[in-house]
């Protein structure tokens, strides 16, 4: 591959895709000894100050959204870490499959020309 990547060349070789781990050992499902009475899992996103986006801080269990928000405040903002909190039921989040990341994120690979650093001839020219 040329130093800047050749856009004509497929970015992910077949070998690279093979590197992705197969799902041979799925995590065992959580055991439930509480008669299905387990509080749902919530993902917590905290905005640390005005003008910034909410960032994932962690997760917690709570019976409903109101409790999840209160618990999130106590758990993730004990030191003024936030000015706003989102809580989202974990099972409402769709995620990309980590095993398929080679194929899924293939498109930008080798397309260095999407970055300003690809264009070197203008080096030294001011305000560019």
């Amino acid at each position, binding site marked *: 591959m040329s130093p800047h990547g050749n856009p004509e060349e497929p970015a992910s070789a077949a070998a690279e895709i*093979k*590197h*992705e*781990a*197969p*799902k*041979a*050992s*799925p*995590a*065992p*499902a*959580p*055991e*439930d*000894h*509480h008669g299905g*009475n*387990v*509080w749902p*899992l919530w*993902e917590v996103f905290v905005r640390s100050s005005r003008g910034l986006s909410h960032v*994932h*801080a*962690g*997760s*917690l*269990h*709570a*019976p*409903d959204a109101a*409790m999840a928000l209160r618990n999130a405040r*106590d*758990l993730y903002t*004990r*030191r003024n870490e936030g000015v706003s909190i989102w809580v989202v039921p*974990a*099972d409402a*989040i*769709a*995620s*990309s*499959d*980590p*095993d*398929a990341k080679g*194929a899924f994120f293939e498109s930008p690979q080798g397309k260095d020309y999407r970055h300003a650093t690809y264009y070197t001839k203008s080096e030294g020219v001011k305000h560019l």
Partner: protein
Amino acid sequence: MAAQNLQSVPDQPAAPQEANAGQGQGQLEADGQAYFDRVMADDSRIEPKDWMPAAYRKTLLRQISQHAHSEIIGMQPEANWISRAPSLKRKAILMAKVQDEAGHGLYLYSAAETLGQSRDQMMDDLIAGKARYSSIFNYPALTWADMGAIGWLVDGAAICNQVPLCRASYGPYGRAMVRICKEESFHQRQGFEILLELSNGTPAQKQMAQDAVNRWYAPALMMFGPPDDDSPNSKQSMAWNIKRFSNDELRSRFVGMMVEQVRVLGLTLPDSEVRFNEDTRKWEHGPLDWNEFKEVLAGRGPCNSQRLERRRQAHDDGAWVREAAASYAAKQVNKQKEYAA
């Protein structure tokens, strides 16, 4: 802490699975192992949905859940002193610290949950006496000076142990440790200040501080775990990039730091054999009573039954709150359904 639970979201149907459907389970395992080995070699991170060896998962689950239990049980020796702290400021500080310990426990339970065990199950194991936690919390906190010694020595040893864990190969564990370490440094400083004030106080106060240091020193050194030649799991944990330094290495570093700090306190370490070995460039300490360590771990320490009983009681006392919250949540859901209908 972090995105770990984002990965615990139920899997989307994935194309590669279909592609692999023709392959045998053995091939899948081999590919997974090769991927895992490469992550280890690159010193990269394993995330919850990645393939991992069963033993790696088991080791992490044991370590993280024990760590979580230690934070939760660790609330007790200090909570014991909240009502008797010598000033309103000290009470407020102690409450903040105990609240932090609860938070640390929750971060760690979340990390452990990504490995496939529910928090309720871990709680049940703790209450049933099936799970272990750090032996240090089975020692009693006898005087106010113990709040100082626990903060300075116990939290100090914990920080020494936990800073390298921020780079543990399992992503969720490392992220939980980053958050915990940030908060833990206040714990050690406040402990140091308690001891410093007592040390600069009346002769009786200074004696109380020295007595607390005398009692907590050896148990704190034992927090790093058995000596390297008697720690069978250490090697594997280091090969898996979970542990970065051996028990003895961390213990020696910790002793070196304490030697410096105890001088500022105007107190002494109860160990006449502490010395810097010029040949190995390491700090050495006197012998530790590893039989006592094993006894305490096996449940025969001064406070084991008291700690577990208290945890059980707190769990039972909180049952009505959990039930009320769950039934309120269910009611609200039903109301919304009726409204929508």
